[in-house]
């Protein structure tokens, strides 16, 4: 990666330079203040950069080289499913028929797009085991919000007002944050000794004021909750809904379906299980699949297939006429470009391929875990719950910290010098000094071996001299950054 000095695009700017050349004025010229009152006009242009095309290209090319990326190296970021992003997806998403289609094009002139969305709905429904899908939510957290608003609408429709939503203590931060945004109170449920929901605690908390239980399964420990049937029964018994955070769906595609487990509402992260590139933090999409009883409340508009007229092709349409709908969650029809990529991915793999992906993801995780256990990680970074994991597993760096003086953060930073992206760190909160490792199915055994070796090397090095890891990394574009200072005196834009 590039180690040169930071120069921002503004620092490359020189007065009078430019890249954009706009079409010439081809209509009568008029003074702007004849069109718009001058008190509503801008007096000083915004200080955007002034720079030619070649220099923009060089700038962002150089800047890009200061990133670690999945197409260059292993990126076992737990909970994020950093699987390969097939290049054909980018190609098909770029077709003008997709990329330059206006969202308000009349449905009869956007049949291909609507059919694609409908096909994706069908596919996600089949994978989730739930019959109705809305593609609207923009990401997982947005799907969660949709889920709780659906829950609210469902209860309201039955004349109930409930105030609490249960989330396990292992839940991802978006779960409780969503609970608050949706106007509920978040109530934590404990984890039992095998890493699943503590049934007793759940039983104690699952009362008639509970609107919903949000669950990830396999959960953020990478463990499948074996009691899921009992949990579902318990929750449904109180009249609450059961929400499935689909961030970990990559473990069970074609193997077990959330709908069959008893979930009412599922969100799917297309940017995880369905290969949408992560883009440095999006775009993604968080479609939701729901059961019959939730369906009436789905967001508006919904993509529907109308019966063929005169024996012709069926027509796809946007149904706005959904009187019990919770309404819109965003503009237009959702992140269509993401749908194209994920639909292409599903077409590429097919049903068997998706199943094989999940199998291999789980095999890779268990293999890596086995490799690690056998080395120094076995004593210094033990797995938090010693069971067969699913697509990921969580190690605890507590012994390493105690015995070697190197924290999970130190190990993560030292991994950077070995050319690996570190796992997710310090999550889930339940596990001390957590390291959450998700290799995904698209990695080779050679890569897993190399990663295990790197962890072992780092621990061996720390046995000799813990200071090395404590001050790592050394070879990255910058070394550890002063985050505390950055928060104390925030510099959030360039002064110009």
């Amino acid at each position, binding site marked *: 990666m590039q180690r040169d000095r930071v120069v921002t695009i503004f620092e490359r700017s020189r007065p009078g330079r430019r890249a954009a050349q706009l079409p010439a004025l*081809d209509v009568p010229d008029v003074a702007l203040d004849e069109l718009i009152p001058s008190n509503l006009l801008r007096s000083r242009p915004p200080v955007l950069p002034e720079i030619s095309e070649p220099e923009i290209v060089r700038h962002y090319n150089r800047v890009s080289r*200061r990133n670690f990326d999945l197409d260059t190296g292993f990126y076992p970021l737990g909970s994020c499913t950093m699987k390969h992003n097939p290049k054909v997806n980018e190609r098909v998403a770029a077709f003008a028929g997709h990329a330059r289609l206006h969202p308000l094009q009349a449905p009869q002139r956007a049949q291909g797009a609507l059919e694609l969305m409908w096909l994706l709905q069908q596919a996600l429904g089949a994978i989730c085991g739930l019959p109705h899908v809305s593609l609207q939510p923009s990401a997982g957290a947005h799907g969660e919000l949709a889920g709780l608003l659906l829950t609210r609408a469902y209860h309201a429709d039955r004349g109930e007002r409930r105030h609490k939503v249960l989330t396990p203590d292992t839940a991802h931060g978006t779960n409780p944050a969503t609970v608050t945004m949706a106007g509920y109170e978040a109530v934590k449920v404990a984890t039992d000794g095998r890493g699943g929901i503590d049934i007793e605690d759940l039983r104690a908390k699952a009362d008639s004021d509970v609107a919903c239980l949000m669950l990830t399964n396999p959960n953020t420990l990478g463990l499948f909750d074996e009691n899921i049937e009992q949990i579902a029964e318990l929750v449904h018994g109180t009249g609450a809904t059961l929400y499935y955070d689909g961030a970990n769906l990559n473990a069970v595609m074609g193997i*077990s379906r959330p709908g069959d487990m008893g979930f009412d509402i599922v969100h799917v992260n297309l940017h995880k299980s369905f290969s949408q590139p992560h883009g440095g933090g999006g775009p993604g999409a968080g479609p939701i699949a729901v059961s019959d009883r939730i369906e009436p409340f789905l967001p508006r508009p919904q993509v529907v297939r109308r019966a063929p007229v005169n024996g012709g092709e069926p027509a796809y349409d946007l149904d706005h006429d959904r009187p019990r709908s919770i309404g819109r969650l965003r503009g237009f029809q*959702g992140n269509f470009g993401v749908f194209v990529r994920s639909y292409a991915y599903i077409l590429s793999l097919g049903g068997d391929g998706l199943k094989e992906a999940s199998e291999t993801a*789980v095999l890779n995780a268990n293999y890596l875990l086995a490799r690690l256990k056998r080395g120094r990680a076995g004593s210094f970074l033990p797995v938090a719950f010693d069971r067969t994991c699913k697509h990921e597993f969580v190690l605890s760096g507590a012994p390493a910290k105690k015995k070697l003086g190197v924290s999970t953060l130190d190990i993560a*930073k030292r991994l950077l010098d070995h050319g690996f992206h570190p796992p997710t760190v310090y999550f889930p909160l339940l596990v001390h000094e957590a390291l959450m490792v998700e290799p995904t199915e698209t990695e080779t055994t050679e890569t897993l071996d190399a990663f295990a070796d790197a962890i072992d090397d780092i621990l061996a090095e720390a046995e000799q001299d813990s200071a090395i890891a404590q001050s790592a990394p050394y070879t990255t574009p910058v070394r550890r950054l002063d985050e505390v200072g950055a928060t104390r005196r*925030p510099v959030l834009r360039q002064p110009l």
Partner: protein
Amino acid sequence: MTRFTSATDDDREQMLAAVGARSIEELFADIPPNLRLKRPLELRDGLPEEQVHDELAELARRNVDAERESCFLGAGMYDHYVPAIVDSITQRSEFLTPYTPYQPEVSQGTLQVMFEFQTMISELTGLPVANASLYEGPSSVAAAAYLAKQHTGRSRIVVSRAVHPHSRETLATYAVGFGCEVVEVPLAGGATDADALAAAVDSDTAAVILQQPNFLGAVEDLERLAPIAKATGALLVTSVDALTLGVLRPPGEFGADIALGEGQMLGNRLDFGGPSFGFFAAREEYVRRMPGRIAGEALDADGRRGFVLTLQTREQHIRREKATSNICTSQALNATAGTIYLAWLGRQGIVEIGELMAKRTAYARKRLTQIEGVELLHSEPVVREFALRLSAPVDRVLDHCAMRGIAAGYALGHDYGELADGLLVAITERRSRADIDRLADALADALVRTAEPESAAVST
């Protein structure tokens, strides 16, 4: 084995042995048997890449996109040209494939782009702080209302009927959750009714939401509206079209507390509505309540300049149920496209594009209203979009124009029952005078024909 996986039968065997399992099934033994799917998924078999390509190409062909017709549709997303450098840079795997920059030492690329983006948004809006993106426009409006509610402790949101219908609907959806009443201020002609606004704002009003230019294309008189909106201590939230901010006075100069908007027009494809990004800028005092990622400058252990995600104590992964928003994955790559686009457009270009659109829009407005059966829906000043009234059913007129390869605009009746005869026409730098003249011809023709009996009209 799929083409994206590497585990051969040999690999599997060797790995299972290392794990100590006899079979893959054994790894799933913890899933209760009756929850295991006993049959294949109801999906087709996987396809070779070229067949995936061909099927998607066939679907794409069944859409009439802006490459195939002259597109005057706007209403929130616009057919601007996306310069090739935007694609070539955002398709670099270094930007395309990493995730959120949790490890700043190896994410300086993404972080620096965020910092540059924030600077540009701050410059455009005239507000000191901006985040690194939200999902898109309308949900950003809802996010602003949530912020206002949390900040003020009040529970009414006042929104102009001239705000994008999708924004109003999204706001309404969210507000049911976070518990706010949403009050709509009516239109007076093409703009927000100032008197009605004054009447609507009270001491329980958390925010007033306006849009500039508004959904009907009108430039709102923010100089008049802003003090009214802020009179009782509510936050003034303006949803703005970033591409007009080279010519329009920025919201910050009117005293807006928050400025936000849809970012599609900044170097993002139409993509049938997404992905794009939302931007969100505010006065300093709201920074610790802002939703979304924020990058800040920091020094490294050797004193070298760098960037980090900062003020993370706002965020869900730290604060959980106390977070200021639940947002996690956002729209980083789209904001990156926006950053490159704004660098490309530059200080001169942002003004020029605004002026070009304003002048072409003025021309189009005049040209189209010369047609028999077309009149102005309002006469407020406009920049890039304007509203007409047609003497014939709008949908039939649109179909006629479509047959001539023109998407003539958006039928306002979809969202405004009272404007069933309304047509919203958008102009970008891609729509030349010749295109506008062709639109005028098609519209004139359509109005004549749709006056004829249905059967005759259909035979065209």
